[in-house]
C-alpha cells in the first residue's frame, strides 16, 4: 500500500481488515476479484457494521447510476435519415431501420 493511502486510512481510523474492504469494495461489487477474496470480504462485511454501511452506501450509489439507463430510443427522424443514407450505400435492409426492432 502506498504511503498516501496508508495515511488516509489512518485519518479515517480504519482497521487493516476494514482497509481491505475500502480498497476492494468496488472490485468486489463489480465481481472483479477472486472467489476467495470475495468470500473474505463478504465474511468481514457481515460482521462489521461500519463496512456494511459502506457497502450499502456504494450499492445504493451504483443502483442510482444504473437507473440513468433510460429507455431512450433513437428518434424517428434519425431512423428516417439513416435509412435513406443506408439505401444510398446499397444496403438491402435499409427499410428495417425505420421500423423499431
Amino acid at each position, binding site marked *: 500500500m502506498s504511503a498516501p493511502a496508508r495515511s*488516509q486510512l489512518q485519518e*479515517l481510523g480504519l482497521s487493516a481488515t476494514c482497509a481491505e474492504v475500502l480498497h476492494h469494495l468496488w*472490485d468486489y461489487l463489480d465481481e472483479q476479484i477472486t472467489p476467495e477474496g470475495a468470500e473474505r470480504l463478504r465474511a468481514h462485511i457481515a460482521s462489521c457494521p461500519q463496512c456494511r454501511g459502506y457497502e*450499502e452506501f*456504494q450499492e445504493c*450509489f451504483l443502483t442510482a447510476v444504473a437507473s440513468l439507463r433510460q429507455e431512450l430510443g433513437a*428518434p424517428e*427522424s434519425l431512423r428516417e435519415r439513416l435509412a435513406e*443514407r443506408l439505401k444510398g450505400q446499397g444496403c438491402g435492409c435499409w427499410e428495417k*431501420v425505420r421500423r423499431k426492432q
Partner: protein
Amino acid sequence: MSHSAGTFAGESGMTADDSRGDRSAADVARDAAFERDALPWLDDVYRFALSLTREESDADDVVQETFLRAYRSWHTFIPGTDCRRWLFTICRNVFLRSRERQRPTVDLEDGEQDAVAAGSVFAAAREKGYDDIFARLDLAPALQEALDDLAEPFRSAVILVDVEDLSYESAAEVMGVPIGTVRSRLFRGRRLLQEKLVTVAEDLGFQGAGAR
C-alpha cells in the same frame, strides 16, 4: 493470364455490373447479418452517442456515421462476437474524431487512491448524516448533471460499465485502453460523482436521518 472482372471481385463473386444491378448472394447474406446483428442496437448506440455528445443533433450525426461505417466495414466484424461492443467502439471513435481531438490523455491517479478517497467521501457523508442519500433522495437529475460534467474519459467509463452494464474487458475494448485504465477511470469517475452529489445534498438542505 489476365484477370477477369469476376476473378477480381474475389469471394463475393460480384462483378461491377452486379453492383449496380442484381444483388449477389454475398450482398444478401451481409445485409441479413447486418440487420440481425447491428440494427437491434440502434437505440443503445443512440443513447451512448447522446451521453457522449450531450446534444441531440450531434448524437444524430454520430449515430448515422457509426452505422454507415459499420455497414461499409461489416467484413471486419467477427460473427459471434459482441456487436454492441463493436458498434460502441466505432461510435466513440466517430465522436472523438468529430471533436478533432486526439484520444485524451489523462493524468491518472492510482485506482487505489480513488477507492480510498471514496471512503473519505462516505466518511464525510456519514458525518453529516447523508450516508443514506442515495436511498432516500431522488438524485437522478443531479446525478445526470454531474455525469454530464465529468471529463470525457471518466464519463465514458462510468457510462459503459455502470449505465450500459459492459464488463471491464468490453469497456476497455470500446475505449481502446487496458483494463487497468478502465478501472482507474471508473473509480475516479465514481468518486467525483459522489463528491458532487454530497455537495448537492448539502446545497438542497437535505436532512440526514442520522445526523450526528
